[in-house]
């Protein structure tokens, strides 16, 4: 039985938004129409009345009204996509952005625009669809072994998002001027100049809504357990495929028109559910309505007040920024169905023995890679093996980078191994905790607001923001005793702040962007000998301190209760480890930027090589981390010589490939 108040509740949030939208729209049209020359257009002074009227009519007809329409449609599309994803995956935080579908769609379009513009002739949404589908597949296969548990899926989504971010950073770094135009679209601009986008999206949305309506009943049976649904004669697999396919298609259609609009797809379904739309049918009805109104209201506010802003803020980036606090607020309120760590699925066995020969092999490899990185290089004349005449080049340019890369790799690997063991989650990494994103946000803001950028200034602001982020993490998780899932979700929400800020910066085409992009992509370029050496020595000191935490990290993966039973004061230990991870990550981020994946990869690789007890795992990870970053730094200097690809990007690209190849096994 449907109760009346259940029908009414979502209307309580929709109605005010609708009223606000109508008021602002009215205001906007009024200020555009009658008195054009004085209010909104400074430059039309002197236009004849008829010219002015024609123009203002055109603005309303071809810019304001289509923009309102597209905001409603895109919001509705994302809301619908979000409901479908959340229903199919039974995951309250699934959405086009958190699952990497939107960014996958966008990367597909960026790649096509740059390298195969012919493909776009077939319809850009098909390119976007391919991109979105690939990244969704990736996310699902990464979280498959954990039974698509909500947190695992979202973590995989974040990892894929970060990876796509790294890929698009490479593109931007080397095609900066070509990308000028694409960056506004990429940031989610709703600006319109005709009705063509609306007419494009409307039929697709209508079809999607009808299809969603058709599968609503069987989909709602998924809320029962699967066998129940199957016994009612439903092919669960097909149903899921249709549901996900539909949501990816709608997302791709929206992204291909207006770029990434953050978080509406997450917020709309969640909020209407909280407001009382409990059944799937209700959510399918209300989420698009609310999503449309939410996006429209945000957009109208921006339209109304954008003149007061120093730079252009595309609506999609704005909703992304608003979404992060929303996610932080939501996390404690979500019922996350069991994916509590249990020992049977965890690959951290206590039984296997450390392998001393493996250490020797790894160290040998590390030595070889360092020697190659120091002595072999490409030059204007081709490959050269450096002779003694070039000690200067080695000492000045290569040694600091090798030291810094090794240091950062070790720090990140230690942080990654610690966080993975601490949360008993193999997808956890320093990036996922949000510390590196927090540091990056601080640095972007510093670069944006200061006219004279110096290295010490960057270090101070980076360190400050790292500690603010850590403070937020601790503050939000102190009550739950730093429980793994909440901790990771908090990190995801903080990391979600980074993307929109980056795209606002990119959309404004600020000439300083080159520096920001270069740093963000993880370069050892700015390191001099003393900082490289200190990074390396610091890392070595950290490695030598690992025996102090080894016991904790042996016990924590066994789960809270076992660890408590063995006499570990779990909450305190987690706090200490969290602070430790934050410091390691912040240090590494200052050296090589926020993106590197070394912290995710190295601990994995170390475990695959047989290091499963905490101490050998930490030390093994450290060696692998150093090896990875040294090789990445060296490759980055050679591949596109004389242009240098930042080590972080290469490490991410290597890491991503490793993921696709290797992680399916978990």
């Amino acid at each position, binding site marked *: 039985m449907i109760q009346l108040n259940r029908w009414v509740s979502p209307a309580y949030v929709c109605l005010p938004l609708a009223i606000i939208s109508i008021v602002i729209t009215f205001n906007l049209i009024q200020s555009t129409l009658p008195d054009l020359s004085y209010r909104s257009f400074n430059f039309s002074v002197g236009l004849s009345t008829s010219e002015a009227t024609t123009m203002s009519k055109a*603005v309303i007809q*071809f*810019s304001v009204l289509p923009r309102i329409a597209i905001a409603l449609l895109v919001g509705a599309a994302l809301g619908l996509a979000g409901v479908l994803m959340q229903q199919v995956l039974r995951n309250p935080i699934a959405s086009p952005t958190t699952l990497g579908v939107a960014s996958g769609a966008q990367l597909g379009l960026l790649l096509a625009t740059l390298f195969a513009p012919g493909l776009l002739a077939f319809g850009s949404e098909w390119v976007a669809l391919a991109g979105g589908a690939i990244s969704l597949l990736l996310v699902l296969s990464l979280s498959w072994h954990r039974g698509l548990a909500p947190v695992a899926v979202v973590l995989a989504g974040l990892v894929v998002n970060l990876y796509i971010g790294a890929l698009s950073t490479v593109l931007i770094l080397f095609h900066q001027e070509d990308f000028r135009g694409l960056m506004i679209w990429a940031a989610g601009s709703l600006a319109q100049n005709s009705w063509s986008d609306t007419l494009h999206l409307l039929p697709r949305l209508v079809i999607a809504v009808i299809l969603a309506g058709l599968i609503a009943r069987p989909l709602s049976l998924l809320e029962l357990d699967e066998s129940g649904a199957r016994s009612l004669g439903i092919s669960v697999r097909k149903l899921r495929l249709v549901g996900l396919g539909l949501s990816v298609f709608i997302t791709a259609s929206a992204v291909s028109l207006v770029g990434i609009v953050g978080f509406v797809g997450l917020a709309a379904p969640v909020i209407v559910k909280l407001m009382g739309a409990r059944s799937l049918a209700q959510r399918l009805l209300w989420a698009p309505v609310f999503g449309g109104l939410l996006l429209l209201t945000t957009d109208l506010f921006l339209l109304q007040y954008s003149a007061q802003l120093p730079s252009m803020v595309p609506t999609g980036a704005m909703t992304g920024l608003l979404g992060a606090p929303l996610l932080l607020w939501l996390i404690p309120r979500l019922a996350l169905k069991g994916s509590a760590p249990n020992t049977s699925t965890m690959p951290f066995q206590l039984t296997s023995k450390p392998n001393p020969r493996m250490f020797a092999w790894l160290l040998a490899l590390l030595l070889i890679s360092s020697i190659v990185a120091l002595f072999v290089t490409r030059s*204007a004349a081709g490959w050269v093996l450096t002779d003694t005449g*070039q000690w200067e080049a080695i*000492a000045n*340019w290569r040694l600091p980078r090798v030291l810094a890369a090794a240091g950062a790799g070790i720090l990140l690997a230690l942080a990654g191994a610690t966080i993975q063991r601490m949360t008993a989650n193999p997808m956890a990494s320093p990036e996922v905790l949000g510390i590196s994103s927090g540091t990056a946000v601080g640095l972007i803001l510093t670069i944006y607001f200061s006219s004279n950028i110096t290295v010490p200034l960057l270090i101070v602001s980076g360190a400050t923001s790292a500690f603010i982020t850590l403070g937020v993490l601790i503050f939000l998780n102190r009550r739950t005793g730093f429980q793994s899932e909440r901790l990771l979700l908090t990190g995801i929400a903080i990391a979600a702040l980074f993307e929109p800020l980056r795209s606002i910066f990119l959309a404004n085409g600020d000439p300083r962007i080159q520096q920001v992009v270069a740093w963000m992509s993880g370069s050892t370029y*700015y390191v001099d000998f003393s900082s490289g050496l200190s990074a390396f020595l610091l890392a070595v000191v950290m490695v030598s301190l690992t025996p102090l935490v080894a016991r904790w990290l042996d016990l924590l993966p066994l789960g809270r209760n076992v660890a408590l039973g063995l006499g570990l004061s779990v909450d305190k230990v987690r706090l200490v480890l969290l602070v430790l991870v934050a410091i390691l990550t912040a240090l590494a981020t200052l050296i090589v930027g926020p993106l590197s994946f070394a912290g995710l990869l190295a601990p994995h690789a170390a475990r695959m090589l047989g290091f499963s007890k905490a101490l050998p795992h930490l030390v093994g990870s450290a060696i692998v981390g150093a090896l990875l970053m040294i090789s990445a730094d060296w490759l980055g200097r050679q591949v596109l010589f*004389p242009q*240098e690809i930042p080590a972080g990007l290469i490490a991410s690209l290597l890491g991503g490939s490793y993921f696709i190849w290797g992680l399916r096994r978990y």
Partner: protein
Amino acid sequence: MVRPFVILFFLALMSLSVEAATSGTSQQVGDYPRVATVDWTLVETLMSLGVVPVAAAQIKDYQAWVAEPALPESVVDIGLRGQPNRELAASLNLDLILISPLFSAIEPTLSQIAPVQTLTTYNPENDFWQNLVDTTRQVGKLTNRSAEAEAVIERHRLRISHLKENIAVDTPSLLVVQFIDDRHVRAYGKGSLYDMVINRLGLQNAWKGQTNMWGYTTVGIEKLTTQGYLVVVDPIPMSAEGVFEDNKLWQALPAVRSDRVLSMPAVWSFGALPSAVRFAEELYQALSEQRAIESDSSTL
């Protein structure tokens, strides 16, 4: 056990290389120093003084976006502007590296290769033309080309005042834009190269809105409701192709409806004196053509 050896190994390398560091020598070619720069504005300035830089950054992009003056093949590409390849630069026996404050972050590291001079061209507090003149003079002084610098400054100044005399005084105001995509443009106002040239030609810039540190702002095309001429500077990016056919808003612009749109070839919008004069020449050309069209249609 192995790790201390690794460290010792690195330290040993270091001590060896410090000794070697003093052996580098530099030699001069011609009468000017061997100079490299990562900043395209400075590349342009150097070339105008007849100084061919030994190395420049992102030469392929320079050719697409600055275009003139063209760089000879001998100029070495040292990679990205923000992260030039130092090892390559160090092997070129440079006497001098020029950068702009935009690249201040790499000043310390580049100064290990050769003396680095930071030249500020974009200083919103000073007169823009004077900024360009100062930069040219400084570059002239640093490359032993002071006399040439004065001559270049004078020649460019004369060229612009000559053009100014030939431009009709009743020329409508100009709104200079560059397309970003089919919905947005960069409008150039106070503090931009284009604005400075327009003013020096005795013309009016129609964009009175706020601009950023580099003299432009990103706006939607609906803001381009100028009574005067709308000047569109190439290149039109891929994402704005088709802007002129299907774009209802564009077609409704007063300047578009009354054929008052001027289009101009690419001129580096952050350029120096050569770009300024090139913009003036191209603008003069475009205005003359527009005049001819208008007088044709009025006599019909």
